[in-house]
């Protein structure tokens, strides 16, 4: 079971609270929109990620728990590493 962060790019309005609360996995681009590390989260960071998702004013940031198969987002893309793992 792995926990990952995903952002709904349509709902996101670049408030930026997520990056304040979870800089380990989210950085803001030059326009204020989040670049989210969507790889499975290490256990010690899950709570921070959860808090960041709860703080999102538009509920765009969500935590997803996936099993072996994993849920896939509509846009298939390679996860974007931010932190050195």
């Amino acid at each position, binding site marked *: 079971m792995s926990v990952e962060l995903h952002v709904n790019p*349509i709902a996101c309005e670049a408030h930026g609270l997520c990056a304040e609360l979870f800089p380990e996995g989210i950085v803001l681009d030059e326009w204020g929109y989040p670049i989210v590390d969507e790889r499975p989260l290490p256990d010690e960071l899950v709570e921070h990620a959860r808090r960041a998702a709860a703080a999102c004013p538009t509920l765009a940031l969500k935590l997803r728990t996936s099993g072996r198969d994993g849920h896939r987002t509509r846009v298939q893309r390679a996860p974007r590493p931010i932190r050195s793992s």
Partner: protein
Amino acid sequence: MTLTVPRPAIRRLTAGPAATLGDHLSVHGELPDMSGEALIDAVEGAGLRGRGGAAFPTARKLHAVAASNRSAIVVANAAEGEPMSAKDSRLLANAPHLVLDGAVLAARAVHADEVVLCIRESAVRAWEAVERAVAERDAAGELPVVARLVATPATYLAGEESALVRFLNGGPAKPTFIPPRPYERGVARRPTLVQNVETLAQVALIARHGAQWFRSAGTPEDPGTALLTLSGAVEKPGVYELELGAPLADAIAAAGGATEPIRALLVGGFFGSWVEDPEQAGTDLGLGAVALLPQSACPVAETARVAAYLARESAGQCGPCVNGLDAVAGALASVARGAPYAAVAADLERWRAIVPGRGACHHPDGAISFVTSALNVFAREFADHGRGGRCSRCSRPSVLPIPASSPIARAA
């Protein structure tokens, strides 16, 4: 330029004339009475893949929608937002009955009683041909489904699957991000099969002639034929039917050859890539639209124009796409106006890294991919542009078809 002896033109979708019901039947023969399962089997055996650009295996889509066992709906997609492409409207204008055959067959296979034909609002001839064809069938008692015609806005994203479903549900023609997927719950909350009209026409041919026949053209990985729209510096621009896997040079020869020396070809529409040697590129299934860029045109200006168009055509729903494509278009426009490429090179590289994959659909990905290809293939022109003052080739009219600026695209 090598001499290619063109093979005899293959005429499956383009056999004709076949616009009227009578002509259609005399050219293609009667439609066999097949069960839904038999049809899906035939399509699977034929290895048919979608002709709308994504090349998704058609049998799998049919299975997915049929599996829901609820009353489904078939959407025939001729929204054709790609300005370089005219194949869908041409197919509908010349062989509407082939598409209707496919739609009816698909409807039976997925337990649908309704077919919605979505036609780009500017494709007047196609609209009229389909209207006539539906009326003919109705009069002859040959229409076992409810057929509805819907005009779609001439925006780049209107044909995207989720955008089209949203539009049919009364919303804007813009992609959605959250589930459900159309095959589970699409138009009017029914399982929806969205299929490009060319794919449906191929289904109609497979039903008549079988999977083996379909595979007698093309390659084992990409069987069958496809329609290709050729534009730019070619003698006879238009829509041509070609075997998949045939070299692009064959297509150009079929269109009468190039009118002047060619710098490069844009293969695959505005999300496609630039290719310098037609011998090296084969006719694959990435949206079948090819434009020939002559040496007398300015690749920098052409690229900048397309980038500006794609930025305009963003649905405007996602920050990285709206801002990123605007920024890229702006940088390319400044180079086209005479600014040195070195001034924007670092920015462009950064945007190419951070924009793709962060939108709700593939629009930003496709746009960046196009720009990346242009910057690679035309590296010399970008570096040299403006060094000798104004570029003499910039002033010639655009080779690539850019629709006039439409401010509604983002607001609609």
